[in-house]
């Protein structure tokens, strides 16, 4: 039991907030939330410790203590590797009595955790991964998908850009589940809106040098170069694209998945004019601004990404569902979450469909010019709002076996 104690000290001590009951005595009197994401790699700024802060705020705002519910939060770094993610999920569910796993960015890891949760009958509430397959062919009665997915991004960004004249595309795609899904979904939207795809090239995850891919994109003479990648890859591609004079040559970049921390890293000088879709922006109304202030106080001044906001919204809804269902059995709570409408200060009112897809409005944003920005993180202009029932893929098009049976 020395090893158990050592493990619980390291895990709970460093990162949990509320009561630190030793793991060996965890019973169903405690709701244990596991936040699993990338703490040290490509997506650390988008999720990382910020997601844990968001989860903490959610537990506070839900008022767990007053309601007599004991909630514990643990976290782990999956390093963007599906084998590590699935190992952690297994251990959490098997020995550490974790009831639900939250966040899980990186689509390949999300799919792995999806399987483990289904096998063990526990809950997987994803607000970080992009692949729309989580509510499509890989849908599960134990999984809920919050915040965004590739279909929503493709639809929002893709159709908006084609409508404004960007009708020939070249894709620069990250070579894994997420990249392929994003490319597939965006291509479908482009073709449906009357555009053409002139070419594609796949690059390995975490590429440093995009020069040869960008050259191919330039040679294709497509009006729009779609970046079907995320995080550091997107940033690198944007940096090097400006180096190679892509903007000046008349081509435009479409960032298909860009987050606030990415824009912060790039700086407005390089990122200005980028158009993309998000489901949360800190500066939308007084409530989001107030929440962001609380978040920034704990995060050392960093403002939240939509993924971290998604952790907040999903944890609150999860706790509501447990309160209503009076159990923390994974499958039952997920079912309850689909019954109850969602409502929180960050995403507003929404709902969760039978296939696990959470619906809330999406926003088409454009990055401001440096001269237009009046303060830290004042980066976006909201161009349009896409209502919740239009933002996401219609349920019958996903190919989700649970839904088809009905």
């Amino acid at each position, binding site marked *: 039991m020395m090893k158990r104690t050592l493990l619980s000290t390291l895990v709970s001590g460093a990162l949990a907030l509320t009561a630190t009951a030793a793991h060996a005595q965890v019973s169903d009197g405690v709701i244990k939330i596991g936040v699993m994401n990338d703490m*040290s*790699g490509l997506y650390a700024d988008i999720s990382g410790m910020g997601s844990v802060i968001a989860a903490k705020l959610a537990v506070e705002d839900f008022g767990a203590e007053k309601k007599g519910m004991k909630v514990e939060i643990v976290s782990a770094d999956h390093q963007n590797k599906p084998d590590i993610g699935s190992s952690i999920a297994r251990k959490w569910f098997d020995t550490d009595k974790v009831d639900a796993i939250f966040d899980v960015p990186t689509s390949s890891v999300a799919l792995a955790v999806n399987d483990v949760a289904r096998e063990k009958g526990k809950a997987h509430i994803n607000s970080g991964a992009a692949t729309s397959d989580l509510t499509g062919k890989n849908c599960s009665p134990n999984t809920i998908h919050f915040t965004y997915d590739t279909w929503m991004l493709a639809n929002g960004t893709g159709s908006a850009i084609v409508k404004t004249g960007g009708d020939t595309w070249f894709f620069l795609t990250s070579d894994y589940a997420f990249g392929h899904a994003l490319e597939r979904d965006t291509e479908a939207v482009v073709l449906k809106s009357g555009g053409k795809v002139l070419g594609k*090239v796949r690059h390995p995850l*975490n590429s440093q040098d995009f*020069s040869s891919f960008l*050259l191919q994109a*330039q*040679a294709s003479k497509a009006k729009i170069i779609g970046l079907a990648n995320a995080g550091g890859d997107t940033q690198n591609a944007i940096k090097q694209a400006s*180096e*190679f004079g892509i903007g000046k040559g008349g081509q435009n970049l479409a960032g298909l998945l860009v987050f606030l921390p990415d824009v912060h890293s790039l700086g407005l000088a390089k990122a200005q004019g980028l158009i993309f879709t998000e489901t949360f922006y800190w500066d939308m109304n007084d409530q989001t601004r107030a929440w962001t202030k609380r978040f920034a106080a704990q995060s050392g001044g960093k403002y939240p990404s939509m993924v971290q906001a998604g952790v907040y919204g999903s944890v609150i809804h999860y706790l509501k569902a447990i309160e209503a269902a009076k159990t923390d059995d994974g499958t039952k709570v997920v079912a309850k979450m689909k019954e109850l409408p969602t409502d929180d200060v960050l995403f507003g009112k929404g709902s969760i469909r039978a296939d696990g897809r959470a619906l809330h409005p999406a926003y088409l944003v454009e990055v401001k010019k440096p001269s237009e920005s009046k303060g830290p993180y004042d980066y976006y202009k909201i161009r349009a709002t896409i209502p919740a029932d239009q933002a996401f893929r219609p349920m019958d098009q996903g190919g989700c076996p649970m839904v088809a049976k009905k």
Partner: protein
Amino acid sequence: MEIFGIPTQALFGQLLIGLINGSFYALLSLGLAVIFGLLNIINFTHGAQYMMGAFVAYLLLNKLEIGYWWSLALAPVVVGITGVIIERLMLSKLYKLDHLYGLLLTFGLGLIIQGLFRNEFGSSGQPYPIPEQLQGGQNLGFMFLPNYRAWVIGVSLVVCLGTWYVMERTKLGSYLRAATENPSLVQAFGVNVPRMITLTYGFGVGLAALGGVMAAPIYQVSPQMGADLIIVVFAVVVIGGMGSILGSILTGFGLGLVEGLTKVFYPEASNTVIFVIMAIVLLIKPAGLFGTQK
């Protein structure tokens, strides 16, 4: 992804990109070749030292407001000094053992350095701007060549040829080469062989750091930047001939070109082609194309 019968424009463009990448390979493999040539040690820490060079440049800019041009000189010196320390404290104790221990030591050191930097800076890259004088580019007709990338080719050529010249054509170089062949004899002549060895290691490390500074403005300055690059650089050194300076330079540029060509005709294999060539060369001529078997 597969493009056959591409127009010559695109071909030239990719070849030029290949040449630019080749400059980095050449610069880095030069350092490795120098170190292996004299110390018979495969310096697995090279990737981490490359990364340190980039980070020193980044820190110099952000903490001390020292710009790119000074960093080109300062970073290699700073990192070179750390190399000297490593050699004095640890590597020198391993010379009498099997050389594989040196490999393992430098491998371990590389892990430590990379891990420490990752703890401190996280994995996402730090931005480093292209120096003003080198921004913009030339439209060559078949492609747009950023000025900075042309600069990289130039510096690499100068440094590589300069090192080759010193090694092969000067007295200092001849001492170094003699010390490799027969250290005790050379020492008997009054030449301070251990100090030469230390300085040589420091020089090789400094070359790696120089590569890092050159890479900082165009690639992400991140703790991982050296890790996968180093394996390719090993392949270059092995193909060129582990102790041969000229071999590494030519192979570095050559391989950059081959990689560029492969990216055009068969992009899936672009990562593998270097290793295929390395395996073939090792089988036919294990000392490398330009090397001599020791």
